């Protein structure tokens, strides 16, 4: 384990020798912010299938039920479950109309749903920006390079 210099994420970890205090502070704040962003995400939207549905709706506003199968790759049964959950929470409204004699079920993004999905993407993009940064490193002692003298006269 010698030479293993990973930064310790810990409540108790003091700023050990060799770490830049400001850098450590910034790293800790970034980590905390990324985690906060993720924890603030709407749990209902965060499920991958429902996120795909909401992302489609975010652009289209309204979409025919049948289209979701094609756009998200979910099965019909699966989809209807997810849409029911979103409808119960008031994120979407499921309605229908007739096209000629054919009934068409449509899904509409509500104002509330739009706010939630925009907030979701904002938080997610912020988390993506704040995470993955390198942890602070120990400053290395300046290595002294010795040039071998070549000139001999």
């Amino acid at each position, binding site marked *: *384990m010698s030479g293993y210099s*990973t*930064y*310790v*994420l*810990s*409540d*108790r970890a003091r700023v050990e020798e060799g770490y830049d205090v400001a850098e450590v502070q910034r*790293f800790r704040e970034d*980590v*905390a912010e*990324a*985690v906060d962003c*993720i*924890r603030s*995400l709407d*749990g209902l939207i*965060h*499920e*991958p*299938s429902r*996120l*795909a549905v909401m*992302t*489609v709706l*975010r*652009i*289209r*506003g*309204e979409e025919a039920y049948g289209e979701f199968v*094609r*756009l*998200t*790759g*979910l099965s019909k049964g699966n989809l209807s479950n997810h849409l029911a959950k979103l409808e119960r929470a008031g994120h979407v409204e499921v309605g229908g109309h007739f096209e000629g004699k054919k009934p068409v079920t449509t899904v509409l993004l509500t104002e509330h749903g*739009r706010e939630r999905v925009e907030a979701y*993407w904002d938080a*997610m*993009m912020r*988390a*993506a920006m704040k*995470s*993955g*940064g*390198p*942890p602070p490193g120990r400053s290395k002692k300046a290595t002294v390079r010795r040039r071998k003298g070549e000139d001999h006269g």
Partner: protein
Amino acid sequence: MSGGVEMGLDKEVEKLEDREPANAANREVAAISRLVFEPRRFAMLNLLSGGGKADYPFLQRMTDLSMSALATHLRKMERGGLIEVRKEFVSRRPKTFVVISPEGKRALEDCFTRLKRARRHDVDTQASLFDGPQVAGASPQGGVA
């Protein structure tokens, strides 16, 4: 062990490619690994992704989980090969640290790639949707007096 996550992802990608390539972005999102995407696990992977090693109390405070719930999440991620759990001696006492594994890093990156693609996909398609009446807030370009 370590192949668990990757195999899962490969299978999902294969499933996607069976279907039409159009609108793959939304499908990729729908097929994000649940092992990675669960909010608490996602948060933990994020805070580990830089390469730091975290101890249990820190993870517990960050995620607001009980010790047993945290241990369950960590076991799941360890089995999936996303993290490595290490025991080290700190002033003669054994202490447990968690670090992200290369597979875990890849899985997290894959997850973000899918999300970003879906988001970009949004933006790209918006242009063709300007004529649609249902796009709220998209003001038509030009024609301003």
